[in-house]
């Protein structure tokens, strides 16, 4: 995180703030809003997966929990959608706390398995509790955002654009502050050398609980916003497709950098949306994104793999890609 990064991020923010005055069609604004939503999920995931080196593969569950919290509160219980969106952050944080209890003490592949199974479990619960969640059909016609008499659907999504951008900016600023705090430094210490970090008095278990909760809050809020914005909650949000897409954003953007995944999310959302325009690409775009992810992992050893090499498993920061032996 250098001064240059910060300046380019600020420049990007100013450009994004001005875009709605230039771009007036509702579809392009919609793609931007979706990109901001994915970017928020990706940067939050980067905090646990990249920055803290925690093998969290259930991150999309926090997003889905936010979606369904907002849907149930605003539609079934008829609360204000604003409250419903914020409540998404609360329920995700509670879920993160629950999943952090076993994860805090697990090692390696078992962290992957438990977090992944947790995401699938959330989907099964949503599918089975259809009297609350609408089951496989999902929930539709959720209430939209309003301030006073002003409906956010008006003016070609002008207001939605700024809410989405605000959530993303708030998430990035918070995560950067976390990353630069003493807590953030201790996270990196645990990632790069868990034994040494533990010897210096850092509790690895407590770190994991805190990092999971911290990464879940904005993910849940933006999940709530996603549901309210699209006015739909569907179990698809827990599925492989969305998960792989966001994971590829984190990887292609560069793990552990917070800003990288945000830029990758913008680029990839526009790329995949552009592909939808072609016939028969609806399914194929997922294949292309998955293949791109593999190519980045294979062909960019100086980029993604090098960074990944410094994650949890590494005993030292020196990476030797051709070293013999199993990790």
């Amino acid at each position: 995180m250098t001064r240059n990064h910060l300046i380019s991020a600020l420049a990007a923010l100013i450009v994004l703030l001005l875009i709605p005055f230039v771009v007036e069609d509702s579809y392009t604004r919609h793609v931007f809003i979706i990109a901001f939503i994915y970017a928020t999920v990706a940067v939050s995931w980067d905090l646990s997966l990249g920055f803290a080196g925690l093998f969290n593969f259930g991150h999309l569950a926090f997003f889905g929990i936010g979606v369904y919290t907002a849907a149930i509160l605003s539609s079934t219980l008829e609360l204000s959608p604003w409250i419903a969106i914020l409540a998404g952050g609360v329920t995700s944080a509670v879920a993160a706390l629950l999943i952090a209890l076993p994860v805090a003490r697990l090692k390696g592949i078992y962290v992957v398995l438990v977090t992944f199974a947790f995401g699938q479990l959330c989907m099964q619960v949503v599918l089975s509790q259809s009297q609350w969640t609408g089951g496989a059909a999902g929930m539709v016609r959720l209430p939209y955002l309003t301030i006073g008499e002003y409906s956010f659907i008006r003016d070609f999504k002008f207001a939605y654009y700024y809410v989405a951008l605000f959530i993303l900016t708030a998430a990035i600023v918070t995560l950067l502050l976390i990353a630069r705090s003493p807590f953030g430094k201790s996270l990196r210490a645990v990632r790069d050398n868990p034994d040494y970090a533990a010897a210096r008095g850092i509790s690895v278990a407590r770190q994991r609980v805190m990092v999971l909760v911290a990464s879940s809050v904005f993910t849940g809020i933006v999940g709530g916003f996603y549901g309210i914005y699209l006015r739909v909650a569907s179990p698809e949000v827990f599925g492989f497709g969305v998960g792989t897409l966001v994971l590829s954003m984190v990887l292609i953007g560069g793990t552990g950098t917070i800003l990288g995944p945000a830029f990758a999310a913008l680029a990839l959302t526009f790329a995949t949306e552009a592909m939808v325009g072609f016939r028969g690409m609806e399914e194929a775009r997922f294949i292309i994104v998955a293949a791109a992810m593999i190519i980045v992992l294979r062909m960019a050893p100086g980029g993604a793999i090098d960074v990944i090499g410094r994650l949890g498993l590494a005993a030292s920061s020196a990476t030797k890609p051709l070293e013999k032996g199993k990790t």
Partner: protein
Amino acid sequence: MDGVLIPTLVSGLLLGSLYALMASGLSLVWSTLGVFNFAHGALMTLGAYFAWTVSEQLGWGLGAGFVAGIAAAVVGGVLIELLLVRPFYGNRAMLLVTVMTTLAASTIIERSISIIWGPRLKQLPRVIEGQVSIFGAPISSHEAMIILLAPVVLAALWWYTSKTRSGRSLRAVGQNQDSAALVGIDVPRTFSLAFGLSAALAGLTGILLGSIRFVTPGLGADPLTNAMIVVIFGGLGSLGATAGAAYVIGMLEALLILWLGLYWTPSVVFLALIMILIFRPNGLFGRAS
């Protein structure tokens, strides 16, 4: 209670058999290479679709379907090993990288299947028609055959990995690659062997499952989660522990469905798993690694 208990136990036995077949394939690759294959479920689906095309569409019969389905899964598994796992051997973050590449592989396989075969539901014929009764519990002969087949396959796998030369080389490579290479074992070939064998098990399970449930692109995804729970529960290390855990989870699931209904069962199984992991982080039967 008597009237429902035995059918419940029989259905638990069936679930356990399917989980055991799936989880033993996962465990085989894990203990040889230290890779967790997230595309295992997609390989099951691949096997089921190839079997359907050969036996139903081409009409060559179920026997040819089994051969084609298992062969397709093996080709898929070996390709995954060559293209997505082998380039990362020796990488310090191999565990994490291969999780991502196999996840990507599973997306690619599932989406390709849905492009090639379309969204229409398909079903494979049963191996044996008719019904039998086990201790008074009526069950289809096909399901009874799965219950009988699973222990046979597991026993064969155990015999292969402990009594034959090539099977023992799998375990040798899993324990220490360098020493295995020193005594003349072709380590890369053993890796392909482990992936191929595991994929064959996936293909077989997929075909068996495809005549109980409908064949859809997501056929393997749902049982994969359960197989993962089995694997977490039993620890990934040994075949015996994995198989034991598969039957425990299968029985538990069947009993919970009887007591709590279908809806709450996955949550309760998962909560039980979390409780176990809080106290035994290496699984119920697992040893500290």
